[in-house]
């Protein structure tokens, strides 16, 4: 039974490992040079941090749009723009793999007025500011995420053009 033999050989090797380490004058802990990798939660990568911040900004844009879309007679052009922001948020969240329970940072969103006061002009300004902020974040993101940011920024610029056409 070659499988059984191989398993026995492996178990015997594992049993002999402490003996070998002992005779070599080292302890198992010495195998890990530097800080203990299990002592603290791993640091978030710059890409993850950038994604968290962009997600927070996108959520803020959606919060701005919702009252403007729901308020009759809101311009019908706003609903498709809101829909595209929701697509952005879903795609961004798909790219974010973070430990369960981790919360995205707050306070990263673009400052603005209370959302009840949102106007077309303010939505346009928010779209433009968001596009500029996304381009600023390209340097800290890995290439595929940088491309996603650039594409979303371009979309925000097209939104700003639509809003300009509405008199914003």
């Amino acid at each position: 039974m070659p499988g059984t033999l191989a398993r026995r050989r492996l178990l015997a090797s594992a049993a002999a490992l402490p003996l070998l380490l002992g005779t070599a004058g080292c302890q198992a802990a010495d195998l890990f040079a530097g800080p203990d990798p299990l002592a603290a939660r791993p640091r978030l990568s710059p890409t993850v941090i950038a994604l968290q911040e962009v997600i927070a900004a996108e959520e803020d844009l959606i919060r701005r749009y919702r009252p403007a879309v729901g308020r009759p007679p809101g311009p019908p052009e706003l609903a498709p723009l809101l829909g595209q922001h929701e697509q952005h948020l879903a795609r961004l969240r798909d790219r974010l793999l973070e430990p369960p329970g981790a919360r995205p940072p707050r306070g990263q969103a673009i400052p603005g007025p209370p959302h009840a006061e949102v106007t077309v002009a303010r939505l346009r300004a928010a779209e433009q500011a968001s596009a500029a902020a996304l381009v600023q974040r390209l340097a800290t993101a890995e290439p595929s995420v940088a491309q996603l940011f650039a594409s979303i920024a371009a979309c925000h610029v097209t939104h700003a053009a639509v809003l300009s056409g509405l008199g914003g």
Partner: protein
Amino acid sequence: MRSPAVTALQGALAAEHAACWGYAVAGAHLSGSWQDAARQDWAAHAMARDALAGMIAARGQAPAAAQAFYRLPFPVRDAASAKALAALLEDGVTRAYLGVVAVADLALRAFGAMAMQGPAQRAAFWRGSTEAFPGMA
């Protein structure tokens, strides 16, 4: 050996060449303000083409030349198909600049991201609607 940055820039240049050629086709089927818009967009692409050629030459490489002829994706016989062609050309240019965003050179990344905003806007103009992910479709 050609660097990834130059390859991406050559891709953008090829898309700009195609756009210049395509707008000449589209413009012939448009009139009035639509033709004015096509002329303005052709000029924007010609400027971008020349700028890209300069950037590639500055990196010691020969800018790719335009092809003598481009195969149209569909017959262009009227204003509607001309506008559809213009939107498609802009999509191609947007996609090509998105390729520049993936390079390691951070200045070029920012350049690509800014450069794709113009064609994304023009694509939305010709299509009559915005897209959620310009250049990624």
